């Protein structure tokens, strides 16, 4: 039998993480969280989560960085905004889920070949290059990098969609594509200048 201490000592918490979450956009009210559980009760995904939204809010503000960033919950969130519209303290929980996703991607704390960060990266590359998303190619690119065998299994479905005229192979593009790259580079520059 392997025994493990499950309670943490205060000194093991990460105060930087705690500060970060309450200063991030949407987290201004996290200190006021009542732990009422309306968020978890309304979340259609909480059934599948290791830490429900209520627990995640508490763990975040108390600085349990590892637990939070390795939690499956941040990837299960579909951003349906149920929690946020119900929160009596106006905590922008959905937005915090986005912030936690970004932080987990930055710190590379997610399983290998995990589809969500791969999809996010391919999505942003496609937007930068073409200004628009061509869904068919996005799907192909994501599965090439995550679960190639599933792509083969999906060929039947792909054919059906193609026949229904729902999978265009012609890449969608905007006219002034260069504008998008300039715009995105400029965002990076301004962010750096303002230290955001």
């Amino acid at each position, binding site marked *: 039998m392997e025994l493990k201490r499950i309670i943490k000592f205060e000194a093991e918490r990460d105060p930087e993480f705690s500060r970060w979450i309450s200063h991030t*956009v949407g987290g201004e009210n996290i200190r006021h969280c009542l732990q009422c559980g309306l968020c978890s009760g309304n979340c259609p995904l909480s059934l599948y989560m290791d830490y429900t939204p209520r627990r995640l809010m508490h763990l975040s503000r108390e600085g349990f960085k590892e637990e939070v960033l390795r939690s499956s919950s941040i990837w*299960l969130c*579909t951003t349906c905004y149920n929690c946020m519209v119900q929160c009596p303290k106006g905590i922008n929980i959905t937005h915090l889920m986005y912030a936690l996703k970004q932080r987990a991607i930055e710190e590379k704390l997610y399983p290998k070949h995990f589809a969500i960060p791969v*999809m*996010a990266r391919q999505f*942003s590359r496609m937007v930068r290059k073409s200004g628009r998303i*061509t869904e068919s190619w996005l799907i192909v690119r994501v599965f090439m990098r995550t679960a190639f065998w599933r792509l083969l299994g999906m060929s039947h479905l792909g054919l059906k969609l193609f026949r*229904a005229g729902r999978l265009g192979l012609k890449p969608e593009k905007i006219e002034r594509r260069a504008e998008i790259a300039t715009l995105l580079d400029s965002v990076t520059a301004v962010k750096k200048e303002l230290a955001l």
Partner: protein
Amino acid sequence: MTYAYYPGCSLKGTGRAYEESLLAVFRALNVDVRELEDWNCCGATTYMSVDELASYALAGRNLALAARENKDIVAPCAACYLVLNKTQHYVHDYPDIKTVVERSLASIGLTYSDKVHVRHPLEILLNEVGLQAISARVKSPLKGLKVAPYYGCQIVRPYATFDDQLNPTSMDRLLEACGAKIVQYPLKTRCCGGSQKGTLPEVGLDLIGYLLAEAQKRGAEVVATVCPLCQFNLDVFQKEARTDQKSVSIPVLYFSQLMALALGAPANAIGLQRSLVPVTPILAKKEIAYA
């Protein structure tokens, strides 16, 4: 008044039937729309998890383009509608975000504007055209076709600009005006799982299953949607979806397809043939005329 029509990427791909039918509805009801010139992807929910500031700038470009045309935007896709609205809220609430959006847009010669109203077709049809005018133009009534109205999440949450966040009724009323019978559908704003079917399939198939099973139990003959991703999930993965029912078979249409049908548009011009779950058997059973 002419609106700047902002289709978004899905309406040019998997959701083509939404565009085809919506434009047919607008034409039949004399709502003047023109596609926003050189619009770009709004970033959807995906871009937010990579770089939220960049996603506000991307949405900001579309708002700036519409401002230059001096038009309001009509955005049928749920994700686009939310992202454009959200950008306006966040630019208004957070000075840093405003600075980033304004300065990055300036680098491509555009000016951010908060004067553009981001509107949804449901709301334009309900408030600008009106139920009476719609009823008066119905050529082929839906003859009591039982419809489960499924709104999904992002049309009404978090910004309930024109309807209730948990119990919206705008689509119910529009379809009733076309002769449909609305069934009580308490899951109308429950999440379909979004892109979860692609990333965490087991979970996605559960969520899709609940929605379909409930619609079937309530006696619905059709599910009506307002979002390209909802329609895709419920239609394309219907066979795989996990439910407590022996089998589920229920066509999933855009609300605009049902309206266009009632307004007399031909079936192939509004993408009825693009649904994987066939639609014509139920139309034949109800003796709803279509060309």
